[in-house]
């Protein structure tokens, strides 16, 4: 006889997910019952849902338990504990996803409404995707990892194609969908190999099975590589990046912001969990693989970005290249005892990068409301009629370039330090490649600054830009974070305590 017995559920630990789930239903319901001209309330509501979901994240982190398993073994079923875990790492990442989601709602408010798109559906999908991200941060099991990844990806495919009558947007969606599904298939194949080896989907069990010894080394290597490739698509690492520029350019700009920040961060969370929990003893496979990927990603992304004329495309390649910097500490993790530094470097980078990049997109959205153009030249003379936006954009670009005292410098610093900490050839060589790339990158960020500050206005139209309130709020949040995190990076205090994931796994 088969009977279902529920595991013991820690509702407090699950609260963020539950709030989001209830919120999704609410948004759908509200969308059904409000008249067309008041559909914007769905956006406002989604924003509140994100913030409401943030509340339990805060209470959980204040409680200060090192780790709690959201689902635990009941009397009738065993082996559930440790598959869905809330630890400090998960909490920090959840907060990052929810805040990014909130800023994306602020970015979307006017563009989605004025474009006449289906607002209710859009926000439902956005919330679903964020829910997937919140879940991936807690997943410590192949199945929950995969489910969360699909949960966050599938709504994003649809959002990329949201401008229904725009061919480029359709291209964006289809391309993203096809390559994303392909990546999922490869990853799933890798997961099945890992499951076959370990006989369990729990990541800690896989770690015990994947140690690159015994007679099944070949299968182990294949499994690891395939799973990493799956996530490499998500973070658009070279050579798995080809979807990103077209998708970023074609998708509605708020969606692009979402993909380049939150979706990318989710991919990195998956990679971190795998490297730190499932493959810590298989570094001979993932280190060379990810080292090459990191070096290629930052270099190729940079070199192609130099030539871009469209600002969204340029930021797309820039975000590919930034991904290379984030990969750098991950690639050399577990060398010379630097895993703590590596983990913190990646997390800090993701947080600062999110604030900065979302801010840059907010400025682009604000400016294109007037210029209706995505060309870099359309920013010409911005300083003469929108000094505030110019200064903000300068701050964001300088932060992306890593110039102190703006947030980006600390992110890059941490990444370099983790690489140098690794000592030895792998670490030093990638640090030098990174340093050269950091300089190359300034060249294209500065092109935009030059356009804004020093060039004339292309069409001579210097009417000031009206920035809607929601965009102003987004700009303020991102601007303040970028500045404050650059001057007082110690504020991301929670991150400072995190030294390892494996140790925090089981209570």
């Amino acid at each position: 006889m088969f009977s279902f017995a529920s595991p013991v559920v820690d509702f407090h630990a699950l609260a963020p997910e539950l709030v989001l789930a209830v919120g999704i239903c609410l948004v759908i319901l509200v969308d059904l019952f409000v008249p067309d001209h008041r559909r914007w309330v769905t956006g406002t509501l989604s924003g509140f849902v994100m913030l409401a979901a943030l509340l339990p994240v805060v209470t959980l982190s204040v409680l200060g338990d090192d780790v709690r398993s959201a689902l635990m073994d009941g009397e009738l079923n065993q082996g559930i504990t440790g598959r869905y875990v809330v630890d400090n790492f998960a909490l920090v990442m959840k907060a990052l996803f929810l805040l990014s989601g909130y800023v994306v709602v602020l970015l979307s408010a006017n563009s989605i409404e004025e474009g006449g798109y289906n607002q209710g559906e859009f926000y439902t999908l956005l919330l679903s995707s964020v829910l997937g991200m919140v879940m991936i941060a807690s997943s410590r099991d192949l199945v929950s990892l995969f489910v969360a990844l699909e949960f966050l990806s599938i709504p994003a495919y649809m959002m990329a194609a949201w401008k229904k009558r725009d061919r480029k947007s359709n291209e964006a969606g289809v391309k993203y969908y096809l390559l994303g599904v392909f990546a999922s298939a490869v990853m799933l194949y890798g997961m099945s190999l890992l499951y076959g080896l370990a006989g369990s989907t729990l990541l800690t069990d896989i770690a015990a099975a994947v140690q690159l010894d015994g007679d099944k080394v070949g299968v182990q290597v294949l499994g690891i590589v395939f799973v990493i490739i799956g996530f490499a698509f998500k973070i658009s690492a070279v050579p798995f990046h080809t979807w990103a520029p077209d998708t970023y350019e074609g998708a509605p700009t708020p969606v692009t912001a979402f993909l380049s920040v939150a979706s990318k961060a989710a991919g990195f969370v998956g990679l971190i969990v795998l490297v730190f929990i499932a493959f810590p003893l298989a570094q001979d496979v993932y280190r060379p693989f990810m080292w090459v990927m990191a070096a290629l990603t930052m270099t190729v992304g940079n070199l192609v970005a130099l030539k871009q004329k469209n600002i969204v495309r340029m930021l797309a390649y820039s975000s590919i290249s930034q991904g290379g910097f984030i990969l750098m500490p991950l690639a050399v993790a577990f060398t010379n005892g630097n895993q703590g530094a590596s983990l913190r470097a990646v997390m800090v980078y993701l947080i600062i990068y999110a604030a900065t990049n979302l801010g840059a997109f907010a400025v682009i959205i604000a400016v294109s409301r007037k210029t209706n153009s995505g060309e870099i030249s359309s920013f010409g003379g911005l300083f003469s009629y929108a000094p505030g936006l110019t200064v903000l954009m300068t701050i964001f670009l300088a932060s992306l370039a890593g110039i102190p005292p703006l947030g980006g410098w600390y992110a890059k610093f941490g990444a370099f330090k983790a690489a140098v900490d690794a000592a030895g050839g792998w670490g030093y060589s990638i640090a030098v490649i990174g340093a050269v790339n950091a300089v190359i990158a300034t060249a294209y960020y500065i092109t935009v600054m030059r356009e804004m500050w020093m060039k004339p206005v292309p069409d001579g139209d210097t009417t000031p830009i009206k920035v809607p309130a929601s965009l102003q709020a987004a700009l303020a949040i991102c601007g303040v974070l970028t500045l404050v995190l650059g001057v007082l990076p110690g504020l991301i205090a929670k991150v400072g305590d995190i030294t390892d994931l494996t140790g925090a796994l089981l209570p």
Partner: protein
Amino acid sequence: MIQEQQWLLSLGTFLPLVGVLVMLFIPKKDEVAAKGVALVTAIATLAVGIYTLVQFDYDQSEKLQFFTTNKWITPIKATYTVGLDGISLPLYILSMVITVLVMVYSWNHVPEPGNTKAFFILMLVLQTGMAGTFVAQDLILFFVFFEVVLLPMYFMIGVWGGENRQYASLKFFLYTMFGSALMLVSFIALFVVTKNAPGVNPDDANFSFQWFDEHGRDIARDTAIWIFAGMFIGFAVKVPMFPFHTWLPDAHTQAPTQGSVILAAILLKLGTYGFVRIAIPFLPQAAVKWAPIIGVLAVIGIIYGALGCLAQTDMKRLIAFSSVAHMGFVMLGISTLTDLGISAALFGMVAHGLITGMLFFVAGSVKERYHTLEIKRLSGMLLQMPKMGWILGFCAMASLGLPGLAGFWGEFPAILASWDPLSGEGLPYGGLSVGLYQGLTIVAALGTVLAAGYLLWLYQRTAFGEVSAEFAGTGHDAHGHDSHGHDAHGDDHSDIHDVNTFEWIAWTPLLIAIVVFGVVPSLMFDVMDPAVSLITDRFGGK
């Protein structure tokens, strides 16, 4: 360390930012209010500086004073540590003086395309970066301040500069960025290597200068040489030393007058200060190996800069090249690793700041009146604007190192020191090749002759002779003291008038300082010497 009045340096460093905050709320149209707030802030900052000057204990100038240390970025062991000793005091005060004077000068000289508010905000941000660099006693803090000046100066050149400003500003930016990227990597490497050294508790390691002062010298020489290389490039680009100097003539020529003055007077010193404060004391074992290379490059810079000057047809570009030569003397002094040499270098830094800053002021005012700086079109300045002409002459004399003026005390002792560099038996890190340095002395002395040549030639061509026909009959001295703003971009030359009130206020303090430090150099030497000995002691020389 003297830990009294711990708030003083932070106040002096960050006060300009308070002014920036206030200015953000002033409407763009209200230019007088913006200028007023900026100037008041700068004067208040200078007042804090003068108070610092008064409170400084000159009997213990080798110690860090007003010292304070606080937690800053705990995860990476970076601290907020600031302090002031005899080496940094003159530069710290100089940066404040220059900012005030530049602002006075800017009162009615805001360059095209206007936007007074932004221009003054940039100057205040620059001030914070410059002052912060000189008080920082933590490597990461130093790096952050070092970089803070980058963007404001980029915009100052790129927005308010001359015709070729975009090229010049980009070049400035990329050069500096390249240098600082390598510098940062070498800072991190220095930290990691000292942290992992045997017999060291890794938990004690931090980024404070004190830590590196104690542990940097224990690094194996080969490793230290590589780390020094990264710092060398970072600082040498900023100085700038041959062959990293090519950004400087472009940046100086294209920058607005204010930018040129700040660049020459303070920003170039960040590089030399970095050598004296960081590279040489932290890595003495590598410094001894690098010193001959620095010395040779410095002397090449002296000769190359002088020859470059002789070839210039533009007055501002000529002054820019003379900076390359003068900084060559400073670096030559540093490379001797002796008390005398490093003291001379520090004196030379301040003297060059005063004199070349003045020269750029004069060049800016000449440009404003004649709308050209082409040397062959200028002539008879002494007839048309006698006061301006005399000031130019005075500065040229000071710049070529005339005894009795400040420039002399930077150049002459540096040459003297290079005759007798660090050498002898039983030195902990070895000595330098006396023969090589004596060769350098001879070449550097030739450089002073060239300096006299190009400066006198410049003066003769621009100030002597008849007023060139092009500008004749357009100036009138009676008009000399007008303090009204005037149209700087009219095509007629009816505005050729002598030094005006704002210029007098901005320039007089510099002119007085050039004379005072020239007559009583001990004013500065006495403050610096104890702190310099503290650095040179580790080499065991004299």
